């Protein structure tokens, strides 16, 4: 494999300084990056190993009631943190529906946000891919694209963002804390990932050297704990990316939906918040008709990017189901098959 420099900075500031140069990449668990490097998809000159940085692995409740999750917290540790799982059950469910137990033990919060698309043409270095090599073309557009985007895509790129974790996070207005060469700043998670437009090679709002140091859930996010689910349809029961997924969270007061949050996964280059569908539910009773209306509204702008029209109808049904499950109430325990349509099956084998 390509030879590269490996540096292990002692502080975040050193990390930023080390990573700002072209060709540098941050390395956390490497559950995505190492595969990309082995396949020649990513060929960094320098790896900046951030796993030894202090202070990035805490889960802390802040004075205002926000929850701050350090970027190096592992997916498994976060999902199994009892306070976290109780307060943000849909996020825990999404985390546990992703990858495998071994990967979840290694993978980190920051890395999950910044994982790359699973588009096969991005991974196949013999294919043209505007994301991998700007301006080269998109072989997915007329290729094997059953799993590709139905929202927010462009002729330049039809890839999707594969994260489960990000879907409920974006629904709950998560905020990303970033350290960069001009100091610390924060942006809404919804603004972290870019839609492809004409420049799919630009995938996020991060600048060279920027490192995600934490993800924050605002105080209001706890308000959905009683009615929050993540639902993920996939081609096998576990260890598969979503064909389509949805997070649904409701704040129900006096038999009416005071506030709804809905986001879709596996449909676009970013976790796809559907505020128009949320608006449909504000102030109405949580009925099947209302959910149906919201599901239709959620996919109004969807169009197939190839052999994937089924994903639009599937996404509608998933939104409908996720809302129905959320309205029924968050289960006291996370199901053995988190986020699965088979979650309610008794005696299920763990994912």
């Amino acid at each position, binding site marked *: *494999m*390509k*030879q590269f420099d490996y540096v292990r900075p002692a502080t975040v500031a050193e990390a930023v300084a080390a990573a700002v140069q072209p060709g540098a990449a941050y390395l956390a668990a490497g559950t995505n990056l190492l595969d990309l490097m082995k396949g*020649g998809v990513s060929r960094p000159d320098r790896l900046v190993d951030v796993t030894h940085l202090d202070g990035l692995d805490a889960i802390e409740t802040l004075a205002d009631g926000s929850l701050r999750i350090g970027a190096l917290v592992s997916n498994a540790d976060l999902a199994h943190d009892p306070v976290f799982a109780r307060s943000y059950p849909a996020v825990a469910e999404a985390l546990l529906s992703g990858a*495998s137990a071994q990967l979840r033990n290694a993978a980190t919060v920051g890395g999950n946000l910044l994982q790359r698309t*699973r588009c*096969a*043409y991005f991974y*196949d*270095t*013999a*294919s043209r891919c505007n994301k991998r090599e700007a301006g080269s073309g998109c*072989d997915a557009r*007329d*290729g*094997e694209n*059953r799993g590709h985007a139905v929202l927010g895509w462009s002729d330049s790129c039809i890839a999707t963002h594969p994260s489960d974790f990000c879907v409920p996070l974006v629904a709950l207005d998560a905020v990303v804390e970033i350290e960069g060469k001009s100091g610390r700043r924060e942006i809404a998670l919804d603004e972290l990932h870019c839609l492809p437009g004409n420049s799919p090679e630009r995938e996020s709002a991060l600048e060279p050297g920027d490192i995600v140091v934490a993800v924050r859930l605002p105080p209001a996010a706890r308000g959905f704990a009683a009615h929050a689910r993540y639902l993920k*349809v*996939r*081609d*096998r*029961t*576990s*260890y*598969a990316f979503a*064909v389509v997924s949805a997070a649904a969270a409701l704040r129900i007061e006096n038999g009416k939906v005071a506030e709804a949050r809905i986001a879709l996964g596996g449909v676009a280059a970013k976790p796809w918040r559907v505020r128009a569908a949320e608006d449909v539910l504000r102030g109405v009773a949580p009925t099947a008709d209302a959910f149906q209306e919201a599901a239709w509204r959620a996919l109004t702008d969807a169009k197939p990017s190839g052999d994937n029209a*089924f994903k639009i*109808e*599937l996404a509608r*049904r*998933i939104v*409908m*189901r996720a809302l129905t499950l959320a309205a029924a109430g968050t289960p006291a325990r996370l199901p053995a*098959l988190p986020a*699965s*349509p*088979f979650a*309610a*099956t*008794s005696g*299920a*084998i*763990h*994912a």
Partner: protein
Amino acid sequence: MPELNLTSAPAHIRHGSNIGQPLTRRDGVLKVTGQATYAADNHLPGMLFAVIAVSSIAHGRVVSLDVTAAKRHPGVVDVMTPDHKPQLAIDPEIKTNPFVFRMEALQSNEVRYANQPIAVVIAETLEAATEGAVLLAPRYESLPPLVGLDAGESFVPPVVGVGNPTENHLGDVEAGLASAEKQIDATYETPPQYHNAMEPHAIVVQWDGDRLSVDMPTQGLVLSLARIAELFGIAHDKIHIRSPFLGGGFGSKGLMGGPPVLGIMAAKLVGRPIKLVLRREQMYGPVGHRAPTRQRLRIGADGEGRLTALDHHARTVSSTFDDFYEPAADASHTLYAAPAIRTSHDAVRVNTGTPLFMRAPGEATGSIALESAIDEMAWACGMDPLAFRLKNYAEVEPISGKPFSSKALRACYEQGAARFGWAKRSLQARQMRDDAGLLVGWGMGTATFPALMFQAEARAAIRRDGTGVMEIGAHDMGQGAWTALAQIAADAVGLDIDRVTFKAGTSDLPDAGIAGGSAHTATAGAAIHSAGAAVIAKLADLATGDERSPLFGAGNAGVIARDGRLIRRDDESRGESYAEILARAGVAEVEARGTGAPNPAAMEEYAMHAHGAVFAEVKVDPELGQIRVSRMVGAFAAGRIVNPRMVQSQLFGGMIWGMSFALHEEAITDRRTGRIMNANLGEYHVPVNADVPPLDVITVDEHDPHVNALGIKGVGEIGITGSAGAVANAVWHATGVRVRRFPIRIEDLLTQS
């Protein structure tokens, strides 16, 4: 090879009969403690690493390789290309026997499929060799690739499978269809699939003058040795291959492919030991796969649900440069008693690595189509699928009219159905739901696989200390040969298993044939059995011919071997130990050889097959279309069961593979480039633990006096057959949607809600 320290759990040690005991794997402790040495675990002093560069185009030729850039990379020692390589003794394009397939050994710059080896980079480290392969940056002259089942003009191949006729006829199919009260005409498609053994193909090789030492997983030690010998022009006795363990083979390690040959060439080129291990994505090309099929079944039945005709046509593909044709339609020869049967095949050539044997080649692809069609026919006749199968139960093999050597399929149906609770099934589809509102469906399929035998030889010895030795170059692919064959060996020489040194897995031992066709236990077992009998006969000669022995005058036929002693058949109190016989005779050991081979007379007389019945329950989300198998029961009759634990594992594995066939496996090929877009275990789906439901295996008693001396039929492949169809039929029963393109996908089931 270091001595293998095989162990048995003490609880399973039993004196007397070894065959039939559910011994745990004797290599189990070695494996779970990491001491079992697989080929790639070997490291030799001075060893270099070789990495194959593969083609990214499927058709054309390589016009340039940047060898200079690769060689400039630190650690790269040499780059082997068509212009710079050791000469082979024969052209690898020459097919010297029917089990030789063409391979790429850098004989030209032509590219015939994606992932074809086009160069080999040799370096001091794996990392340097890997980067060297990237730096070659091949440039191509590309031609349009042939992709898919409609790639070009179809043709009728001369044979399918291994020498099977392309077409078979019984009776008048068209008349049978014309006279039928009910007819179906349905077309099914199965995708290309890849073996994906956990252990990648690997070789560690060292030349010492004209002697060659090889560590390499192989399902056919002697076939591999013969192929290496002819390719490199060296005598058989100069080659030593060690293959004590395979991390799965499934047919992809049966015949010598190009990659290990490239490893041997690389070692010759640089004069140092070489390790060459395929990357996972490189296993999607030069080491075989299961070809896609499109199968049309036309079936007729009379008013009582009796078949009047069965017409099964299969389209498949082979490569542009060699011939292997998945014999899918042959699945219709043996199971259902139609008075008129026609099976036929045609094919197109595509830019692919040559398809080869993959676990149940032909049987698996044919079974899912046939069992689906039979299910459709049962429904058309308004009959329960089991009742329909029983109505058309074949008392003799339909295509040949031969009686079966044994066939306990009726018992399989009965016991499987009872265990599953089949009687409670609704006839109509989409009638059953569980408490959570999921659709529930029950389906079944009949399993069948031929009881084959190859040729094998074994050497047995009894030593002065009363212990035994059994030697045979047999192969343990994970199926349990180290255990099951040692059990046969122990019984063959009348000793407890721990008193027999069982040697296998190297090419200097007697030829065990190939571990394939579900025939290894039968073939190697027969050889072991006869070698054991021969060595006991020699020992008996020593005893019965010596007047100092209590067995004097008993004659061979009057003596039996038990627990390390020979005793008189007519008076079991009279006997003596092996050690006593050898001590008195003053010999260190007696030895003998035995062979195992098919019995042509019995084969002429009888049809020989294992059978089974598989029942599956699936759950399907009614709106979302996601499918999960919730339980499976398989009842199988496969002659004598040597080790019930290993057999159960084999059948579990087969049933899981069948589920995988119906719901998961597919190599997704880009139709424009012929490249496989999911050549990794993340995206090429096989079932994970959460997909595998409780499995129930019943082995039905079956005594077969004809298949071989031990009555063994083999269980390696039959589990896939029947199972794939059972799952597909259960999906129909759950949803009312008949999906004829496999694997069944979520979108296939979204049409209704």
